[in-house]
């Protein structure tokens, strides 16, 4: 076994030391010289018009430099197009400080800029604003009949497929039927790091922008288009992100405000949001789902009806794939899937970890459990009987699919065979015990990505791609891929990302980074390898003379012949022997559309959950989880496992705690802080076991990876709800399963 084979090996994070020592700097930590500080003033009302802003009082405070509002914003780009970022949905993007109109509660209506943060914050707290308030609507449940079919527009959104078969008749004639409504409230991403932007003014409209984002290029494009700046003059840097989960997929308004203030004041400016203000933008939308399922006597699915109604803002159609999965996770010939939106006076929702699928799988997988009970089948057996060998939505084969193995291996690890099916039949002392199962399916996708690789005379390799690290392990796996491709030790390789000065990479999201950037990195390293081989062949007595790139392998610091590994050249010797200081190469990778489009590319999971319920007091504890995941090749079992652990915790959170509580009288989220927006603490988390069922798949991309950041979340909330049913006999279809709902 060779020492420079890193792919597939558990590898600790290469950025770990920087993160735990504080060397890793985040957007709000760049203390550039002569910095001014902006503090955002959020609207106290939900809908209406600003009639007066008393800025004079504020400008009189010592240290205040300026108050920006719609009254004094210079004229900026006019067309909606200029405000659209890479993942903007259809509609008209929100423009900060654009007019007197207030469209949602906590809308940024002014930014106070001062010499210190403290003065800015103080002055902002005193800013008086008069509003003309008009009636607002924020309650989705009051809009049940006002849904409409959204137009297109958003990257990655697929309208539900047309109905197939005879879904209505099939449901009516089914031997067993279930139907029900499933609800979850809005949820906010709540990453640890609050959104912040530090703009360094370099003179003459030249800016260096440190931004919290999941895509430096997305921020760059947004800023240059709105403010009419050239890309050469706006460098966006985002090397570390304190959690994204989708919240950084769109440029947030502090970026706009910081750039605006910097350009106007000709000075460096930082704007950072407060925890409360983290509840003032995108979120997982409040969604109502209706499901009706039918099964035949033999336990096969007869019909699937899945309808979703989700909130969106008045100005954009935020769409996500909620119902489509219900047409592909199980074999069924009679399927009707519909998806609608309702406009509310809220900010546009935003992708949040496994957007759409987390929502859809929660409803589908509970309904499947209900139907299994109706049909008198074990819920796992029921799923196996309805296994989809082919993607019926797209009418294509899967490039690979080992969900069956996930079911089997997960069940074996969990001990599912010992489950007694009747609700309330398992106990541990005074507690009721419940076991539930769920799962899901998620897209495996690849985007175009570029990278560069550069080898130094001292044998150090630097690889660059303007991707982003949101905590998933991007630095680490890219270092692994580069080191293995070049046959160099991990320590000799540095990977750089998060900078628009680097080769362009897509937004960090959709679980596509490993596949996309990984392929780009590999391409750049292969290009460098070919150049290096040529130089090696020029060396005196080179044993590699006359061979091609395919004949050699890069391993253990050497280039050697496959046919005779004793014939080798030491990589470190090549540049000095050729009198060269440095060798560079670029590479980029795009999906092989011709090949990929013939297949359905997806990752799957199956999750098994144990809960213990104190029935008298309505308390639930998730004591055991086994999550079996089939997501192609696993590049780094350690960071991949962390991703799935995090997903399970997130699923527990979604099932048991998370909800952004809106007071519809005010149109305002009221639990807008970490004390009251609950996510689990360590004491809520017990045993979690992760099983990877590896798939060999050279169709999804040359690396064979499907991405691991989101699939692990699917079905977790449903499996918990199913386990609660098994424990208590109570069906909870309305998340979170909080204490009062089980009394």
């Amino acid at each position, binding site marked *: 076994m060779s020492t420079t084979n890193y792919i597939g090996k558990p590898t600790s994070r290469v950025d770990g030391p920087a993160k735990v020592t504080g060397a890793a700097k985040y957007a709000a930590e760049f203390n550039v010289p002569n910095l001014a500080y902006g503090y955002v003033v959020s609207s106290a009302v939900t809908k209406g018009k600003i009639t007066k802003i008393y800025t004079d009082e504020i400008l009189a405070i010592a240290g205040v430099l300026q108050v920006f509002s719609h009254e004094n914003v210079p004229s900026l780009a006019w067309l909606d197009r200029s405000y659209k970022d890479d993942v903007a949905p259809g509609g008209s993007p929100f423009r900060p400080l654009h007019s007197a109109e207030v469209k949602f509660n906590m809308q940024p209506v002014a930014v106070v800029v001062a010499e210190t943060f403290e003065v800015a914050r103080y002055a902002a707290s005193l800013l008086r604003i008069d509003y003309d308030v008009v009636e607002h609507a924020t309650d989705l449940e009051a809009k049940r009949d006002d849904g409409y079919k959204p137009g297109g527009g958003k990257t990655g959104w697929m309208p539900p497929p047309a109905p197939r078969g005879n879904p209505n008749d099939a449901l009516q004639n089914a031997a067993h039927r279930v139907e029900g409504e499933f609800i979850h409230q809005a949820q906010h991403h709540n990453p640890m790091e609050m959104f912040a932007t530090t703009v360094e003014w370099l003179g003459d409209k030249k800016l260096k922008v440190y931004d919290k984002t999941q895509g430096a290029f997305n921020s760059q494009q947004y800023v240059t288009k709105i403010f009419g700046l050239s890309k050469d003059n706006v460098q966006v840097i985002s090397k570390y992100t304190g959690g994204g989960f989708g919240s950084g997929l769109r440029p947030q308004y502090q970026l706009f405000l910081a750039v605006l203030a910097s350009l106007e004041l000709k000075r460096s400016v930082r704007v950072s949001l407060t925890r409360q203000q983290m509840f003032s933008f995108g979120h997982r939308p409040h969604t109502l789902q209706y499901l009706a399922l039918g099964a035949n006597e033999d336990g096969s699915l007869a019909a699937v009806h899945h309808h979703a109604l989700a909130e969106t803002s008045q100005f954009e159609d935020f769409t996500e794939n909620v119902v489509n999965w219900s047409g592909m996770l199980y074999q069924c010939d009679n399927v009707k899937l519909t998806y609608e939106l309702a406009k509310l006076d809220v900010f546009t929702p935003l992708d949040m970890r496994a957007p759409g699928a987390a929502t859809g799988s929660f409803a589908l997988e509970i309904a499947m459990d209900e139907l299994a009970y109706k049909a008198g089948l074990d819920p796992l057996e029921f799923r196996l009987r309805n296994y989809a060998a082919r993607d019926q939505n797209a009418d294509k084969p899967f490039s690979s699919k080992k969900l069956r193995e996930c079911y089997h291996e997960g069940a074996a690890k969990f001990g599912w065979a010992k489950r007694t099916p009747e609700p309330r039949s398992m106990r541990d*002392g005074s507690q009721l015990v419940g076991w539930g199962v769920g799962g899901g399916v998620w897209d495996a996708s690849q985007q175009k990505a570029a990278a560069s690789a550069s080898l130094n005379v001292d044998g150090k390799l630097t690889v660059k791609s303007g991707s982003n690290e949101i905590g998933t392990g991007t630095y680490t796996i890219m270092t692994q891929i580069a080191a293995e491709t070049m046959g160099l030790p991990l320590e000799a390789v540095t990977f750089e990302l998060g900078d628009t000065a680097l080769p362009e990479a897509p937004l960090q999201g959709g679980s596509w980074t490993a596949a996309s950037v990984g392929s780009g990195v590999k391409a750049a390293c292969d290009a460098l390898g070919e150049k290096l081989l040529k130089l090696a062949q020029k060396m005196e007595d080179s044993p590699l003379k006359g061979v091609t790139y395919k004949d050699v392998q890069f391993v253990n610091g050497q280039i050697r012949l496959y046919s005779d590994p004793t014939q080798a050249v030491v990589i470190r010797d090549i540049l000095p022997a050729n009198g060269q200081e440095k060798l560079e190469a670029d590479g980029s990778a795009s999906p092989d559309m011709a090949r990929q489009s013939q297949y359905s590319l997806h990752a799957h999971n199956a999750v098994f959950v144990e809960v213990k319920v104190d029935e008298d007091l309505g308390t639930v504890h998730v004591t055991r989880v086994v999550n079996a995941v089939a997501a192609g090749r696993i590049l780094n079992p350690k960071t991949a496992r962390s991703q799935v652990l995090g997903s399970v915790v997130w699923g527990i959170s979604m099932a048991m705690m998370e909800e952004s*509580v809106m*007071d519809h009288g*005010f149109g*305002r989220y*009221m639990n807008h802080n970490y004390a009251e927006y609950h996510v689990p603490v360590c*004491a*809520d988390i017990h045993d979690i076991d992760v099983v990877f069922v590896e798939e060999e798949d050279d169709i999804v991309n040359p690396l064979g990876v499907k991405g691991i950041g989101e699939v692990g979340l699917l079905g977790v909330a449903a499996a918990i709800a199913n386990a609660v049913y098994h424990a208590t006999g109570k069906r909870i279809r309305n998340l979170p399963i909080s204490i*009062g709902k089980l*009394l």
Partner: protein
Amino acid sequence: MNSFTYTRATAVDAAVREKSAASSVRFVAGGTNLLDLMKENIERPTRLVDINHLPLKTIDGTPDGGLRLGALATNADTAWHAEVQRRYPLLSQAILAGASPQLRNMATNGGNLLQRTRCYYFYDLTTPCNKREPGSGCSAIGGYNRVCGVLGTSESCIATHPSDMCVALAALDATVQVTGKNGERTVRFADFHRLPEDQPQFDNTLAPDEIVTAIDLPNEDFSQHFSYLKLRDRTSYAFALVSVAAALQLDGTTIRDARLALGGVAHKPWRDAAAEDLLKGQPATEETFRKAATAVVQQAKGYGHNTFKIELAKRAIVRALKQAAEGTQTATDVFLNSNP
């Protein structure tokens, strides 16, 4: 910025003098509540008097055999104090059920008594709140009131006192030692906090010039049969939806003396003497417990989102009394009684 002057008091009488100089002066102890309120602009003191250097940090016996807890002893030091654990384990458990280790290391006993409600509207300046701004209205009534109270509420406020520690102190018949311009006085715990009535801006009966110097625990023994049961949305670092402090003295299986107080349900720790009377002299059975529980919630009133608290309180009282009678507070249920 919100400018204020900061001074450090080293003697109680000096602290009292500074405090009575203006209504906008505040004592700061651990700061775990006050600083949050200042960040939210709910409190805007012009002067902070740091009382952490007052000689009020000790925990000592009292002449009548009780225990005196200094107002500036931290919640952590109090909960882990050997005498507290041996003689007043109910108090220790209640403190450890609150907040997080980091917060308990900073929070003081005096500050714990004086922490403000966690009603969402109280913390959000854009919404009306009678407690924050008398006469502006109560947003929780008719709004999102899941964390609000069901007992002793009024038309002007339905907020709860959020403390865990105080629930145990109420059950244990503690007294509060205070010092003001006119000297010292002793306040029964039941009289320290108040109900909202039509003046919800006042959480308690402490005069503006007064400081809490100590909390005294009487010489009584409830160390064998007790339970602090806290129900919340997650296992740690969340305020009580309902909590119960129950303590019994038993003659065989007959209840000789009983204490029962609830948290998370009212504007003050809710001690119910009538319910205690229903327990005294009775057999320690579930039936007895249920009668007491029913009595406690008889006058309870739900406001929609928080109505579940009435049934939850009833069940929690029965469970806590059962645990107390069995002496199994720390054994039966690893989840409910874990205090991370």
